[in-house]
């Protein structure tokens, strides 16, 4: 099967945009920069849509949901060394199609939004070239047919993220955050690389489909090796998707421009880990142990991040921790083998979280850069579009019935509950996290939009059209995005790639749903009491539990612990043990000893060279005399000497 439009166009268009704006952007007029920047993702989106309609155009809803298709396109050879053969090869199947729709669609909207948001920035062209570069790598990541090409995209999005977090590089904290993101991601990539090496060693190929065939042809393949591979891949995924213990870079990544946070650090890049696990699910399916680890990591992250989100006052940081927490849900979904549910949540999360960030950006824009929620308030009247779209997103993430997040979160929790006794525990933690989620999201909602303005100097105003239109579109998607799963159509669509959805809880599901909704309502109610009815009571609560509050506020001191346990010892080891003791004292000492011996020898021999002409002459005469004596009397002696030399 071939695609209508060549698949390579999808990454190539943003790459062209990156090159044009990156090289010429400084000299181009602003409208042209904007045009290039916007057209690139739009073009990709159109190519994806065109291919989709080409495939399903004549199939009526919902028949196409069950159709099977898979397009593989080889563009060229990348690496061909020994028996290792890695082509530039793209695959369009149900999973990558869905992911591409999200990436290019949401990506386009965020590009559009950025036109307004970044309007006054001096390095407008640089911003858009980076953003296009990101889209290039992200589409490569999604489309790749083999692990190594996926790794290319994987590292590439990390690079784009590094560049964009540190976009305002003159700000020390932004530059630090970019560096931190890259290095922490590298630690994850270390695991990914080891996983790739293991895959080469055990499969001899890196192509997903070939590996899947090998796995299915060999039922005995399980346990040890597969578990190790899966755990290595998981390390990679925890880095990119900000899971425990490598989540630390994501909150700091909020130093970047807000649309970047929306696109990269909420909707697309950070979900790459989930996508990778879904892509390699045939491996994870063979290792129950690795799956349990995925589920536990996800659940713990969800809970852990949610608790930290409770007390943050920076609007973007609340959203960052919430992203970490929601990604935890997706990992939980993967961990209970409900990959399609995880992907479903990935999609809805992309809608509502992008919307939340863009809304927050709109608020920050209106508040002239202020990010502290304690200084906001009462914005409901002044920014109606932002308010209503944000409301849709808050309802969606909190799991209010009918909104998109409700369906996807419910699907994950139901799958968890159905997954044995460990699953029940995980379900419980997940449900508690849902309560916390509702609480902190409504806290944000109340603090930002209700009450009265706390900052007298600010003159908030509604954002321009280029910013509000994407908000509106995402708002609609946040509301309706979940409806695709009603009746199971969504799962049927992904089934050819991810397999059928595991057994559901059946009639229990409605009970579970009820509990989740009740918990969400409870979270809303608590936020309503604390932040709307009695505005001072949150403060009182914090003062009542100073230790807990402080630990949460300082984010469990994880950054400090890492610094003390990892960074400082490494630097100390390098400086004191390696540099001073080994390099300077031991190796330098040895070299000095060698040099010293030579110098000493020289100093002794140097005495011969007194500069005194007569002593030279005396030595000369003595030497001549000795030579003469040797010639005359040394014949016998010389023979002995020659014999000694021979043996």
């Amino acid at each position: 099967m071939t695609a209508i439009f060549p698949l390579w166009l999808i990454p190539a268009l943003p790459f062209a945009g990156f090159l044009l704006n990156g090289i010429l952007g400084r000299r181009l007029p602003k409208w042209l920069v904007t045009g290039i920047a916007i057209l690139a993702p739009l073009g990709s989106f159109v190519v994806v849509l065109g291919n989709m309609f080409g495939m399903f155009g004549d199939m009526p809803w919902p028949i196409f949901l069950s159709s099977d298709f898979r397009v593989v396109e080889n563009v060229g050879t990348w690496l061909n060394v020994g028996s290792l053969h890695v082509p530039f090869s793209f695959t369009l199947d149900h999973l990558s199609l869905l992911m591409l729709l999200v990436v290019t669609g949401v990506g386009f909207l965020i590009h559009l939004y950025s036109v307004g948001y970044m309007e006054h920035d001096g390095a407008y062209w640089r911003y858009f070239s980076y953003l296009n570069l990101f889209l290039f790598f992200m589409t490569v990541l999604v489309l790749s047919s083999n692990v190594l090409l996926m790794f290319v995209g994987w590292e590439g999005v990390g690079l784009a993220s590094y560049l964009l977090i540190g976009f305002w590089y003159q700000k020390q904290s932004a530059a630090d955050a970019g560096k931190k993101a890259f290095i922490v991601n590298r630690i994850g990539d270390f695991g990914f690389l080891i996983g790739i090496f293991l895959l080469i060693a055990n499969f001899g190929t890196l192509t997903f489909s070939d590996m899947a065939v090998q796995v299915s042809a060999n039922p005995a393949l399980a346990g040890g090796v597969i578990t190790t591979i899966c755990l290595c891949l998981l390390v990679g995924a925890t880095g990119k998707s900000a899971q425990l213990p490598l989540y630390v870079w994501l909150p700091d990544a909020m130093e970047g421009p807000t649309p970047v946070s929306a696109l990269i650090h909420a909707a697309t890049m950070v979900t790459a880990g989930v996508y990778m696990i879904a892509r390699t699910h045939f491996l994870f399916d063979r290792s129950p142990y690795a799956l349990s680890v995925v589920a536990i990591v996800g659940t713990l992250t969800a809970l852990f991040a949610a608790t930290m989100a409770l007390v943050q006052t920076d609007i973007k940081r609340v959203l960052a921790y919430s992203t970490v927490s929601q990604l935890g849900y997706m990992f939980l979904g993967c961990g209970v083998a409900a990959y399609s549910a995880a992907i479903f949540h990935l999609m809805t999360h992309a809608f509502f979280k992008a919307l939340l960030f863009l809304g927050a950006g709109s608020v920050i824009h209106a508040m002239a850069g202020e990010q502290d929620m304690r200084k906001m308030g009462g914005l409901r009247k002044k920014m109606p579009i932002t308010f209503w779209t944000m409301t849709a997103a808050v309802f969606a993430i909190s799991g209010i019935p009918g909104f998109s997040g409700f369906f996807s979160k419910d699907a994950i929790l139901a799958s968890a509950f159905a997954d044995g006794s460990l699953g029940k525990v995980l379900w419980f933690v997940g449900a508690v996290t849902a309560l916390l989620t509702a609480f902190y999201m409504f806290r944000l909602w109340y603090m930002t939009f209700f009450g009265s303005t706390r900052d007298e100097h600010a003159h908030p105003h509604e954002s321009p059209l280029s910013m509000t239109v994407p908000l509106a579109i995402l708002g609609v998607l946040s509301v309706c995005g979940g409806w695709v799963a009603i009746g199971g159509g969504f799962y049927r669509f992904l089934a050819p790639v991810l397999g059928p959805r595991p057994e559901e809880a059946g009639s229990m599901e409605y009970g579970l749903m009820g509990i989740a909704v009740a918990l969400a309502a409870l979270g809303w109610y608590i936020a309503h009491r604390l932040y709307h009815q009695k505005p001072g009571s949150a403060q009182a609560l914090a003062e009542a539990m100073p230790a807990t509050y402080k630990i949460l506020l300082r984010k469990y001191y994880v950054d400090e612990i890492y610094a003390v346990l990892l960074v400082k010892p490494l630097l100390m080891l390098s400086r004191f043990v390696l540099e001073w003791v080994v390099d300077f004292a031991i190796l330098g000492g040895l070299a000095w000893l060698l040099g010293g011996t030579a110098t000493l020898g020289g100093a002794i021999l140097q005495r011969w060279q007194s500069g005194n002409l007569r002593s030279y002459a005396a030595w000369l005469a003595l030497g001549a005399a000795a030579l003469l004596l040797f010639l005359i009397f040394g014949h016998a002696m010389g023979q002995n000497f020659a014999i000694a030399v021979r043996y």
Partner: protein
Amino acid sequence: MNALHGAVPIAWYLILSALLFSLGVVGFLIKRNLITVFMSIELMLNGVNLSFVAFAHQWHQAKGQIFVFFVMMVAAAEAAVGLAIIIAVFRARATLAVDRIDLMKL
């Protein structure tokens, strides 16, 4: 010729030559004045020259005498350069004592 040949054996020439050479060596080693040292060198050269001539005469070969001419040429050139250096050294250091001129060390 014959009488001379018979009268003075070659050993005598060689002994004289060795004496001259040894005198030169001793002079070179013990004299302090650079000029005297220089003259000692000439003495050594002449000692060697004498043995050259003696051997040339003994074996009826011109090579030894040609050598002597070479040595005399070199000695003349050396004398010119050497004296120039001595003058330069004297101008620079106001002394011709060999012990004082010890710049030839590291």
